């Protein structure tokens, strides 16, 4: 088991390095650099040069990259160019916002979707099944930000139950903070529910076709026992991979949803740092997102044998 983790992390290092190089080069390739952005239209030659040297941008890209890598390895992600904040604490704080919403939403979606998928597969081609599939497909087709806008309009503006804009951290006022999180979580849950339910149904149908289900029935087990004890475990494996895929992508920041609900998430942070050409923050963001992507995939693979013992680590 441990060897497997080491092996996977070992494999992830080249990917991480590759991405950090791609990011480092791409962002510098985009026209406009932080010094120009800060000076705006008052950027005469001398002040530009002075600003660039103070930000360390006058070295060659390669030296800048080496400096950055050296500082990252020593755990220091540097300081944001526009807000002077230390990058690491900023990232973690912003990531906690996105992570809470994504984790709660995906967990909720999975908890509801798997039983629904199981039930739809069991009652395959019945009216109930067609209804559930149609519902799931409908939810799958609604763009998350539009759904967010609608909910915001209905509950925020029209009914006024929930705050329309702004964000309160848990530290300041837990109760109030929750009111800010309700709508984004509901939106994300509904959107992801569709995809997971369809996958759960498809994999359950696949499993119900196999002999060991007939064998279980031949033992005289009730339909419920057959579904929960035999069908669920084997049907959950492919669904679990999909959940892992969804988590990997969403944890990278739900920039669009964060825009709709004005949440200070890591997605929004990345977009803003791109526009402000805030290189340290952007590089920090991407490193964090890629690490999450690798870690989530690793966790998915580590937990996979729980559902399918044939997979040896």
């Amino acid at each position, binding site marked *: 088991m441990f060897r497997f983790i080491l092996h996977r992390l070992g494999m992830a290092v080249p990917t991480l390095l590759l991405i950090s190089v791609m990011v480092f080069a791409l962002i510098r390739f*985009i*026209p*406009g*650099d932080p010094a*120009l*952005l*800060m000076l*705006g*239209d*008052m*950027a*005469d*030659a*001398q*002040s530009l040069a*002075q600003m660039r040297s*103070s930000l360390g941008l006058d070295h060659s890209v390669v030296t800048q990259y080496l400096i950055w890598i050296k500082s990252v390895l020593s755990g220091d992600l540097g300081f944001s160019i*526009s*807000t*002077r*904040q*230390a990058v690491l604490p*900023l990232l973690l704080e912003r990531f906690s916002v996105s992570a809470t919403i994504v984790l709660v939403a995906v967990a909720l979606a999975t908890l509801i979707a798997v039983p629904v998928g199981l039930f739809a597969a069991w009652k395959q081609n019945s009216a109930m099944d067609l209804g559930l599939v149609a519902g799931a497909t409908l939810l799958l087709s609604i763009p998350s930000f539009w759904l967010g806008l609608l909910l915001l309009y209905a509950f925020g503006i029209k009914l006024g139950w929930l*705050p*329309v*804009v*702004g*964000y309160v951290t848990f530290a300041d006022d837990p109760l109030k903070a929750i009111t800010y999180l309700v709508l984004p979580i509901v939106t994300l849950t509904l959107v992801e529910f569709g995809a997971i339910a369809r996958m759960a149904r498809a994999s359950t149908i696949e499993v119900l076709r196999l002999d060991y289900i007939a064998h279980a029935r031949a033992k005289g087990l009730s339909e419920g026992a057959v579904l929960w004890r035999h069908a669920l475990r084997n049907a959950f494996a492919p669904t679990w991979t999909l959940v892992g895929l969804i988590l990997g992508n969403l944890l990278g920041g739900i920039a669009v949803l964060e825009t709709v609900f*004005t949440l*200070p998430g890591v997605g929004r942070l990345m977009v*803003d740092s791109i*526009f402000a*050409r805030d290189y340290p923050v952007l590089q920090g963001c991407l490193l964090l997102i890629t690490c999450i992507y690798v870690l989530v995939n690793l966790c998915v693979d580590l937990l996979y044998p729980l559902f399918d013992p044939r997979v040896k680590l």
Partner: protein
Amino acid sequence: MHHYVKKALYFGVPTLSLCLAALTLQAGEPSLIKVGFNGDIRSTEPGVNRDENSDAFIMHIVEGLVAYREDASVGPMLAKDVTISDDGLTYTFTLREGVKFQNGKPLTAEDVKWTWQHYLDPKTQWRCLPEFDGRGVSKILDISVPEPLKVVFRIDKPNGVLLATMSRPDCGGSGIVHPDSVAADGTWIAPIGTGPFTLGQWKQGQYVELNRFKDYTPRAEAKPDGFTGNKQAFVDRVRFVVIPDAASAKAALLSGGVDVLPDVTAMDEAELKNVPGMQVRTSPVMTLGGLLFQTRDPLLGDVRIRRAVALSLDYSQMVATLSNGLSTVNNSIIPTTSAYYDATAHTGYPYDLDEARRLLKAAGYHGQPIKLIVNKRYPQMFDMGVLSQAMLQAVGVNIVLETLEWGAQLERYQSGNFQMMAFSYSPRFDAALSYESVTGNKDKEPRKVWDNPKALVLLREAQSESVAPKRQALFDQLHTLMLADVPMVMIYNGTSIGVVKAGIEGYRSWPISKPRLWGVSLAATSK
């Protein structure tokens, strides 16, 4: 509380006097006003590592010899008066008596000389050094102290904008600081100025505070006048809260998180205007919004086409849409709030479609596409582009909107690589500086739009001339020349919209658009 006290001791202000001061005020907690900032300050050193917010903040702590008045003209601040020699090469400042630094020590001419040498020392990397070491209009030859309260500056060439440049907030208003603000090896510690507030607690990324300077010696005037006048503080503490997102800032104001929002968008203003308990403070500012032409572009090189464009824009309707009716049309580079904005500056381009069509035909224009760069980051620039495209279509000018990301547009502006561009310049507080931002030699500075040699000569004169009526004549000539050349079409100056909660009196927006918290008081009733 612990951290706060340590900081106070650090400044050498005896703790005893602090508690004493607190007692003299009416009983109860020290009064506090919370102001919303869209970003944290970059440092506490005037004019070095700074941005818009840092400048506004530091102007509460340090004061320069001279400073901008409400109408952006320059008036004395720490100096009682300023005499300029006939040849315009010597400036003599006589200091006010009885002015004390925030560490209790009296202000002396030696301190002024020490501060200026600190600014002129290249190691300090003062932002405005190029303006005073010869790279700009003139060079400061030497600073001398003939008498205890008199400082004399000698410069190599006459410079009409010397005082205006000294007062620029992005130079920290050339604020005079006490030598103790800097450690032995020259590294900056903290600002010890003569302003109405001292530096308070700074929690990186969250907020930064100012404390009232009890022994502040205000000027004789009754009321504040821009960055000068009577700057007595009526509040114990001011906290600048960092709220990057505009929508969150509006929500914070509504929910009581902050008391003052110095700068909100026109849309927010329309919404907040009718919210009970909100006072809106607007003031035209000196930003220059308009359409830039690249005079070296093969198509737009022809002045007739540029003139036709200028004539086919319905300025009043456009400005009404862009500023929700808050701004007025201004086709001149000189901001409407500037002292030099006179009748000639008021003359603009008539709305004359027939003449425009005639000019286009004469120039042989038959619908070739003209690329107009806009961006979505600043809504006014984008809307200006869309409205111009629609209006120009009426005369057959085929405008193609090219929407770039703001950084990319800045790069194109800096390198002059564009045909047309909707752009807005950040405020310059002296008419000459405004003209200087658009006029210049295109080979050396590709970002400048106007390189008419005659204009350059006029500009040099205006920069060195220090007598107001003479400068006014030069500005009028520059304006009429620009109307003829049409290197760009100035459309309007922006509006600074501040929103203040009820119960806060004395806060005013002004053309320089930096928030000022002296002269602002908290009504006894509301918290």
